[in-house]
Structure formats: structure tokens, C-alpha cells
């Protein structure tokens, strides 16, 4: 099976692109692929735990935790998170924080990189 890396930049609220990224990750994992996810730009909104689920807004924390439980590696851009006031103690359990070079390094071994751009 292959390795897929998703570079994800859109915000949780404002478009459905982040929802799409998680659906794609789920589909890839269901096929047996290893999936890595890099959250940067406004996508670092995922790096704030304890978000309340309202039906009017996308809510992906539960799905993300399920996928991480199945082996998806999720890493958030530390600088993007800190710039938005999301600190280490806010980070959901299992999510890693790293600088942008983590994402660049993943491009070497991954079979496919899908870069899902931000707003």
C-alpha cells in the first residue's frame, strides 16, 4: 500500500475544504494507505482542543481523533498556531507540532502529495 501526505491549509469554518481533506484521508486509510496530514495556515484551527460542535459549523475534532487512533499522523505548523494564539497546551492529544521543514521532509518518501490550498 502507498503513503499519502495531505498538506491542508483552509480554515475549519468558512469553506468545506477542510472537511473534504478529512473525508479524503478517511477514504485513503480505508483502502489501506498510510496517511499523513500537515495542518498549516488557517487549518491550524484544528490545533485547539475542546471546540464545541454546533450543527451550523463544521466540527472535525471527533473524526480527526478517530483517524489518528487508526494511525493517521497529524502535525500542525507550530508558527502558524502560535501566531493565532493556539499554544502547546491547547493541542489535541496525539497531534504533533513542528516547523514547516517537517512537511517538506515528508515530500521525499510519500508516494503522493495532495496540497489542499487555503483561502
Amino acid at each position, binding site marked *: 500500500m502507498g503513503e499519502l501526505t495531505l498538506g491542508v*491549509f483552509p480554515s475549519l469554518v468558512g469553506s468545506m475544504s477542510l472537511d473534504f481533506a478529512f473525508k479524503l484521508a478517511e477514504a485513503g486509510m480505508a483502502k489501506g494507505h498510510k496517511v499523513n496530514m500537515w495542518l498549516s495556515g488557517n487549518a491550524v484551527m484544528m490545533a485547539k482542543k475542546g471546540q464545541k460542535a454546533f450543527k451550523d459549523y463544521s466540527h472535525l475534532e471527533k473524526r480527526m481523533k478517530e483517524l489518528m487512533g487508526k494511525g493517521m499522523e497529524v502535525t500542525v505548523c507550530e508558527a502558524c498556531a502560535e501566531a493565532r494564539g493556539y499554544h502547546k497546551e491547547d493541542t489535541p492529544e496525539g497531534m504533533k507540532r513542528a*516547523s514547516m521543514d517537517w512537511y517538506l521532509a515528508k*515530500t521525499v518518501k510519500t508516494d503522493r502529495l495532495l496540497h489542499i490550498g487555503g*483561502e
Partner: protein
Amino acid sequence: MGAVKLLFVVQRPPYKSENPRLALTHAIASQTAEIYMDEGDSVVPTMVFVGDGVLNAVKNQQAMKLYGVTTTENHIKSCLLIDLPVWVCKEDMERLGLKEDQIITDAEDMGAELKTKFVSYADIQKEMESVKHLLFF
């Protein structure tokens, strides 16, 4: 695995979106990515500005003076300083009425030797086909 070529394609104008800045900072991060890689592996990025993205390469930006943030110009010059190729699409410059003397062509003030390349879309297309991964910003 060896050297992996990446093409960062910037199509958004500067300051209106975070995308161009994220493209530049991610590309520059290639300099330190080796800490996560096996010995002998590396990433070789190229930055290319197309469409409205060519506006990122206009020189004499004043973002620090007006907004207190570093300019996109400074990031582009940092690319040149670390020998990261910077390409600007000629056809899109023409469409926007931009001449070469209005564009960041070098970073000699920083000590860089590499210069910006003005390329046709056909050349960009060729590069897109030759790299391992494309990153659209």
C-alpha cells in the same frame, strides 16, 4: 531516494491572502528539512509566480512601513540568497503591464548571486511535468 524536486506555484496576489507568504516560508524551510530525512535525501524547491501571483514579485514593497510586517519582497530575496530559484511568468507580467525593471531581479544587497528568471508559461509547464510534487498556493 536522493534529491526530490518540488515546484511551488503561487497564483494569489500578495497581502490579500496568506498563501504567497506560506509558499515562500515553506519553500525556505527546505533548508532545514534534512533533520527529518535519511542521509542523502534532500528537497530541491523552485518558486514560480504565475497569474496575479506575479504581483508578489513587484519591488519596493512597503509592508513593514505600512503594516509592521515583513515584506513578501524580503522573503523572495531570502530565496535568492539561499540559491532557491525564483521564476516569474513573462506572459502574466505582460498581461498586468509589468516591466522587468519593476520586478525583484536580485538580492545583491543581501549578498545573493542568484537572479530572478523571467520564463514563459511553456517553460513552467515543462517544469510542472518534471517535478515529483506540485504545491499550488
